[in-house]
């Protein structure tokens, strides 16, 4: 899991990128707390072979579940 809550662009994408590079996971959950990060991580994941399911948690937090295509 990548916890990028409280971080603003581009850090959530970098953390996601590093995790994918390091462990090449089949699924990965990314937590963020702003819509810019939701958009940026989703775009990055889609461009790198992952489908993304976005779920809004409480308190303006989002869970993004990345699944390898």
């Amino acid at each position, binding site marked *: 899991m990548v916890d990028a*809550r*409280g*971080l*603003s*662009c*581009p*850090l959530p*994408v*970098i953390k996601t*990128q*590093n995790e994918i590079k*390091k462990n090449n996971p089949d699924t990965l959950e990314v937590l963020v*707390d*702003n*819509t*810019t990060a939701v958009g940026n991580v989703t*775009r*990055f994941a889609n*461009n790198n072979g992952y489908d993304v399911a976005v779920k809004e948690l409480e*308190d*303006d937090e989002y869970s993004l579940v990345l699944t390898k295509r």
Partner: protein
Amino acid sequence: MKKENFFKKNWLVMLTGLLIGAAAVVLTAFGNPKNMGFCIACFLRDIAGALKLHGAAPVQYFRPEIVGIVAGACIMALIGKEFKPKAGSSPFIRFALGAAVMIGALVFLGCPLRMVIRIGGGDLNAIVGLVGFVLGILIGVFFLKHNFSLGRAYKQGPVEGLLFPILLIGGFVLTLIAGSLFAFSEEGPGSMHAPILLALGIGLVVGALAQKSRLCMVGGVRDAVMFKEFGLLAAFGCIIVAVLVGNAIRGTLNWGFEGQPIAHTEWLWNLLGMTVVGWGCALLGGCPLRQLVLAGEGNADSAITVLGMIAGAAAAHTLKTASSADGTGANGPIATIVCLLFILVISVTHLKKEQ
């Protein structure tokens, strides 16, 4: 197919780029200084002057464009439910980085936005600045890739997020009803300005569009290098194209190094000044325009950064580090080196270990 997709995804940010370029040309046509239709660094410096934070008589004016950008971003964020007050990510480091970025920008004489506007006016010194700017971003990207972080921010109450936009608007209203409290240039760049309502209106539109599209001058190069995403970089190009076309139509396109408006030809300091800006802004997560927009979205860390930039402008003119058309200020070169060293220290001391 892929091309179509690119435009579909990035049309808003590219349109914003074109409009900002056009806005710069229009504002210049209506009185703003040449090749300075829209410069965040210069305008914050003028505001610092209007508040009498520095005594440089030619650069004092409470620029309505800045007020418009922050207010426009704030309104758009409120409408789009993206107004999210937050703060707490190394505020004082952000303040100091903001000041360093401003000192670097005033050595070059412009923020990244004015840099591309100068390129669009034919000022080749700005190409030198661009080289330094890209170099600075690449250094910043290196540290970002090695887990540089200023730490996380936390959710705040609405007042924390709204205070900066409200204070800025309040200050602007005061200039209209109690102008004698402020300093206003009688000559020089600060005395040259477009009509207040036009400047404010254009600022509002640009702020709103920049909020929605997340336009950022630093993000363009950064995202292209780090993630192979070219949307923001395309917007960067759109600004140059719009300004080039605008200047060509007005007959104000003038290629060369010498005699460019409010610019100097000391290439090393043009380059290194923009290296400070590129590197500092990469660490801050956005260019000066983006900081204004984020401040409008309720990000108090960005509001602190903007205050740091205003303080940096005051320092630059008080300590004679700011350049003029005659060349670098007496202490400009040494200040540039100090800023680079400072940013290096911040970079290395904030590399987080991977868990």
